[in-house]
């Protein structure tokens, strides 16, 4: 019984340190498995969206849709990625402005 209690104590300490997470089951979401480190030419990109940790992905990424419809994964915090996103946002704002 003493060893039993000791085992439980060790168990509780380990658990306290690590804190388990069963609810975080693998949902098999569409995600980026890796991101490119090489800049993508901005003129190939026609759209983007975020796939972040809160979307159930392990690798946070910006997904750029190219003109041919491929979906390329880019790191969200790189300057060249931010630049492309800003340009796309500007363009879409312009397109909206001209259409209305």
């Amino acid at each position: 019984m003493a060893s039993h209690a000791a085992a439980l104590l060790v168990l509780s300490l380990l658990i306290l340190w690590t804190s388990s997470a069963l609810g975080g089951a693998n949902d098999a979401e569409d995600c980026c498995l890796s991101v490119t480190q090489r800049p993508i030419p901005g003129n190939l990109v026609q759209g983007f969206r975020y796939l972040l940790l809160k979307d159930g992905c392990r690798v946070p990424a910006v997904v750029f849709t190219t003109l041919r419809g491929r979906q390329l994964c880019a790191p969200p915090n790189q300057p060249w990625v931010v630049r492309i996103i800003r340009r796309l946002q500007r363009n879409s704002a312009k397109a909206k402005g001209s259409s209305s």
Partner: protein
Amino acid sequence: MGTEPAEQVSWGPYSGDDEEAYSAEPLPELCYKADVQAFSRAFQPSVSLTVAALGLAGNGLVLATHLAARRAARSPTSAHLLQLALADLLLALTLPFAAAGALQGWSLGSVTCRAISGLYSASFHAGFLFLACISADRYVAIARALPAGPRPSAPGRAHLVSVIVWLLSLLLALPALLFSQDGQREGQRRCRLVFPEGLTQTVKGASAVAQVVLGFALPLGVMAACYALLGRTLLATRGPESRRALRVVVALVAAFVVLQLPYSLALLLDTADLLAARERSCPASKRKDLALLVTGGLALARCGLNPVLYAFLGLRFRQDLRRLLRGGGCSPGPHPRSRCPRRPRLSSCSAPTETNSVSFWDH
């Protein structure tokens, strides 16, 4: 962060041509898992509902039988078996919610999401902790029956251990209770655990390691050690009862290994990937998801099978059940042949009367 998804055009099959020209290596692309998701949508709810039905019926029966028998003095194993049934029953109660969520998205709000995830996590952990407790109890019961065994502990000890296990399980469920979110993605609401940004990878990795170590290695270690010692004692004892008891031991350990080992191995591989930040190809990632899904269903089945393995195999339980079904509880008054057996006194392991030798299994 909250940016609108870009306008989507219809996607043709990928063609690696001129866009690829500026780069010799293929660029990392989004990994679509529509086929795995389709399988998951069919597999997860059906497993969940089957296990829920089995779990509710079996564990409900165990609890009802215990309550009907109104046995006051319970052995530690008996108390822990009852708690195991309770944990599995609670787990089974959460499964229909999970199935509904997988089928049509989560529509019950954030508070329910946290409550259900927390309950799921707590009862799952309580379940395996009680399994380890039961193996230890059984070993202690055998050891105590030996002439040189330890002296009996206070009867309140089992209840204290139960309380500790439940508190521990609640602690374990804290991440699920705190961080479960009702989030939206592509029009579907999902109840899932999302760690706060920043510590995510570390905590996720640590939690996965904890799941393998605590959820499998430790209980298996405790069970293997206890049942090995037990088996040795039983082998030294001749008689049909001890052979029967041995068979039960083998069944318990085999079931635990068969149901839990594949999932734990899959989880271990996944954890290694996570910690090593290893990149897998899309097909490999899909195979891994599939493996986790199928083995996860197997691990869940343990909750439905526990009553069969732990309670129904016991003679005492079957007697109590027969009594329950006949509609007669056992009367507390004087009875010619007392039908409410008291806690058996284990004087000797080798005394092959029914109460003595089989009582380790029948609480």
